[in-house]
């Protein structure tokens, strides 16, 4: 039952999404790969699509995977799945707002979760790095990817908007493609 699988998979992802979308890349990658929904490279392509369109990454990826595997109903099931945990949790937390805000249990858990998010994003760097550099297409392609990465890094830390960085790296990719590098 594809709809139930979509709903449950993205329910889990929604329930554990912490600190912005990128921390969840390793989890999403493991889930979509296990179901054969998307390859690693396709997932990284979609990160770019998601950065260039409105909405949180978790919602965008669930809608996309849902639509790809189960049409409109699939998209609804996956998106409902990813949204529902936070919806329910906030309804509960709002009731005990003051208690929650000053809870030592919550702040204790958070002191472990914050560094966990850093570790998870670091492993996302490794897995995305693999899709960029590891399909070995020769030294020139490797150096070209390295060059685009280096330039993008410079632009990103100069606080250029992500969409501009994506456009520039895309244009460079096309130019290098015509030059026979990729």
């Amino acid at each position, binding site marked *: 039952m594809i709809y139930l699988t979509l709903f449950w998979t993205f329910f889990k992802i*929604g329930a*554990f999404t*912490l600190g*912005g979308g*990128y921390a969840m890349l*390793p989890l999403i990658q*493991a889930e979509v790969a296990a179901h054969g929904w998307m390859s690693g*490279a396709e997932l990284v*392509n979609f*990160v*770019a*699509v*998601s950065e260039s369109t*409105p*909405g949180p*990454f978790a*919602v965008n990826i669930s809608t996309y995977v849902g*639509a*790809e595997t189960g049409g409109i109903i699939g998209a609804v099931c996956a998106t409902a799945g990813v*949204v529902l*945990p*936070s919806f329910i*949790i*906030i*309804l509960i937390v709002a009731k005990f*707002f003051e208690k*929650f805000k000053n809870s*030592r*249990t*919550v702040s*204790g*858990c*958070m*002191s*472990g*979760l914050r*560094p*966990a998010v*850093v570790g*998870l*994003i670091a492993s996302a*760097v490794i897995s*995305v790095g693999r*899709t*960029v550099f590891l399909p070995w297409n020769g030294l020139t392609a490797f150096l070209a*990817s390295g060059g685009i*990465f280096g330039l*993008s890094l410079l*632009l990103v*830390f100069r606080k250029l908007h992500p*969409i501009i960085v994506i456009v520039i*790296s*895309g*244009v460079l*990719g*096309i130019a*290098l*493609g*015509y030059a026979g590098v*990729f």
Partner: protein
Amino acid sequence: MRFKTLSRLFFTFMKIGAFTFGGGYAMIPLIQREIAEKRGWITEEDILDIFAIAESTPGPIAINAATFVGLRVCGFAGAFLATLGVVLPSFVIIGLIAFVLRQFQDIRAVRWAFSGIRAGVLALIVKALASMYGQCPKSGLSYTVMALAFVAVAFFKVNVLLVIALCAAAGLAVAMTAERRSGT
């Protein structure tokens, strides 16, 4: 009156959903303007609380904030409509993109573009890593958890949900031990 507030909630969050590229923190200024300044539904102080909570509960920040503001303003119906509103724009846009993306994926130029874009995305993620590291409190616990979570997920393919649960438990255990020590 209630109907008017509800439809306003829905459309305001639809606007917020349609204009926050990348999601998350990008929507803080927009929420501030639309919900606090323009409508006066909540105070500026509430906004800080909302984002503190949205950060420390699971789920995308945009969804958490929409649910929380909607609930504050108009109860359960408000929470439902605000959340629906914030999700709807990206749902429609991504639905359309899913339809076109597959058609274009095999074009040579698109493939090349994405080869470059993946390298750009890697840079975006490195930036996210740097800023999350900057926000993270520096302590022995932090460094240990960071390193263990990284190694477990990147090299040993340990289940991410398990890693998250263990990290939360470790943080809680350390906090409770410290409390007990200072208590006695």
